[in-house]
């Protein structure tokens, strides 16, 4: 069956669709979080090198992966919005940014908590943490630019361009930071990869999926507000039950 994508790219249709989808994503995210945490804390064995502390990775790694991936997704939406002038993609890009920044922040925070017992310091200039910090800066720059332009159309287009430039830069930054790190013989976060227990892997994947679903749910919820705000002049918004009440 061919799906009419254009139909769903109209803000009004998408608004209704997102409203229906959010509970499903939210509920499955909550369930997966519960399962992942159960496996991570009760099934996965204690790491013989790092003790109980290694259990931080079940949130740290998914948060890192998600923060990087969300930036790319945001840049793709931004590019679509810029090239095809589709309103919805631009709105999606703005809705993704805060969630991506929060995941970057969680990744930094949990990385610091992991570093303290391992290296005796809250912050080490490890390649992953440093790139994550720069990624957070990129998110903050994107949001700062978007919020300082009053005209929403110009805001969308200008920040879209920034997101694209940023996403081209992300690999260069990552590579240069890695190089810099090995040059200075810095410490690197390693999770005794040789003996990663099956339960550890399961917990990690389930937590990753849970974070994904959570991110989708919250982004959809946020984009609904953005749609309402931008389309407040239109008739379909005026006819919504939540507006009439």
């Amino acid at each position, binding site marked *: 069956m061919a799906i009419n994508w254009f139909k769903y790219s109209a803000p009004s249709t998408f608004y209704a669709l997102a409203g229906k989808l959010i509970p499903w994503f939210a509920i499955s995210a909550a369930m997966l979080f519960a399962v992942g*945490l159960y496996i991570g*804390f009760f099934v996965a064995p204690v790491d013989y090198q790092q*003790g*109980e*502390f290694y*259990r*931080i990775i079940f*949130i*740290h790694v998914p*948060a890192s992966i998600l923060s990087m991936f969300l930036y790319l997704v945001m840049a793709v939406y931004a590019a679509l919005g810029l090239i095809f002038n589709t309103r919805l993609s631009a709105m999606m890009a703005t809705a993704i940014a*805060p*969630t991506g920044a*929060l995941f970057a*922040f*969680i990744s930094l*925070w*949990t990385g610091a*908590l*992991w570093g*303290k*017992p391992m290296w*005796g310091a809250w912050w080490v200039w490890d390649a992953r943490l440093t790139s994550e910090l720069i990624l957070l800066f990129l998110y903050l720059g994107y949001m700062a630019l978007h919020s300082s332009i009053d005209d929403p159309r110009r805001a969308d287009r200008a920040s879209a361009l920034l997101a694209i430039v940023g996403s081209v830069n992300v690999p260069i930054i990552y590579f240069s930071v890695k190089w810099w790190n090995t040059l200075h013989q810095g410490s690197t976060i390693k999770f005794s990869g040789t003996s990663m227990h099956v339960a550890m892997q399961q917990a990690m994947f389930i937590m990753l999926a849970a974070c994904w679903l*959570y991110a989708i749910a*919250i982004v959809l*919820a*946020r984009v*609904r*507000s953005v749609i*309402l*705000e931008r389309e*407040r002049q239109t008739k379909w*918004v*005026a006819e919504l039950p*939540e*507006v009439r009440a």
Partner: protein
Amino acid sequence: MTGLDIWMRENPLTYVWLGSYAFALLIFVVELVLVRHKRKLTLEQIRLLREAGEED
């Protein structure tokens, strides 16, 4: 070694729970509250706009 270091080594699971998971959960909850709040504000604004428009 400071007091925190000793406490951390004695209660690793509490440390992991409170420090990472409870904190991440807190962030998720804060984000959720903010998004709901934003939605409430937007809806209110639209209603106000409509009422102002109907009076004209």
